């Protein structure tokens, strides 16, 4: 039991430390480590991943909680999730201090001045990717009109009610999905 927990901490801390660029980049690392320790086959992990994507929360954290639970119960879930988050919390605390120190520095202004439009492009690209997977089937000729209808409905709600809470929109779209699709 203690050994299981220690292995969980080690594996998830390691993955957390070397995953740059967000949750989905961790997937290959997860698969390698889980197969190595015999915790989960990659087929099974794909099921877990789809669960992790359908539930709220960061995808990587959700997967860690699930796998931790399957290895060492509730304690395992807590330990695995904590170990996965720990490296980014520690590193970000140091970076954050640095960022606050250089707040008005001209070099920082220059670097972030060019990073802002780049970041907007990244967000837009992510939106386009989600849109592509959501509005189209396997091919571009396979258009899912009902889903596009839901999106238009949400867009009208968002436009009509200026100060609308995004949480309300999420709940509304889930209900619409169950009723229409």
């Amino acid at each position, binding site marked *: 039991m203690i050994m299981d927990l220690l292995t969980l901490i080690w594996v998830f801390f390691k993955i957390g430390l070397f995953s740059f660029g967000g949750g989905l980049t961790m997937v290959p690392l997860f698969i390698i480590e889980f197969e190595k320790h015999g915790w989960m086959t990659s087929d099974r992990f794909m099921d877990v991943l789809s669960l992790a994507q359908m539930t709220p929360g960061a995808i990587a954290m959700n997967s860690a909680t699930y796998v931790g639970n399957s290895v060492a119960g509730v304690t395992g879930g807590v330990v695995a999730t904590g170990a996965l988050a720990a490296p980014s919390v520690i590193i970000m*605390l140091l970076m954050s201090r640095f960022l606050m120190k250089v707040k008005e520095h001209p070099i920082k202004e220059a670097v972030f001045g060019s990073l802002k439009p780049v970041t907007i492009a990244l967000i837009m690209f992510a939106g386009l990717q989600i849109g592509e997977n959501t509005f189209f089937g396997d091919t571009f000729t396979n258009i899912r009109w009902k889903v596009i209808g839901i999106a238009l409905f949400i867009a009208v709600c968002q436009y009509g009610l200026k100060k609308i809470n995004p949480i309300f929109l*999420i709940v509304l779209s889930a209900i619409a999905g169950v009723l229409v699709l």
Partner: protein
Amino acid sequence: MESKLVFGRISEHIHVQLFLSFLKVGFFMFGGGYAMIPLLERELIEKKKWIDKGELLEIISFSQMTPGTIAINAATHIGNTKGKALGGVVASLGIIVPSLLIITILYYVAGNHFESDIVQKAFTGIRACLVVMICRSVYTLFRSGMRGSISYVFFLLALLALFCGAHPILVIVTGGISGFVIWKWFGHRTKKASI
């Protein structure tokens, strides 16, 4: 009466507010990563006024370059600026707790049968909603983050690189370095154009 007073004081405490705000974001963060940006905009910029749009963009680009998920990085940084290191830890806990609660419950309740039809439909609906919300975020960020024609050059080049399959980290690092180089070479002129 007295307990009400005590509770009022506790809920005003910055660390409690940080935890609760990020707990709320965590509970409604579907789809991971960039999908949380509309939620962050609403909670941190419009409601709490802890950061502005420019700072949100800085945090996102920074999160891409440090290990870990955007959600945790954003929570740690904002928590740290508002409530020191403890604030950072507390805000990150707020993001993690929903994952822990929901997945642990599902693990024991649903077991192996979580491929339900209704959940699938609801999730497809949510994804349609995410696309709309991200579009709006892009629009508002575009209006506040773009300054001078050079911004548009950076934006279009980054988008082109992404469409050609470049890795996001590569795009960000290249963008940051070229910003620095341009500042170094044309320092005064670009400062007037305020890239």
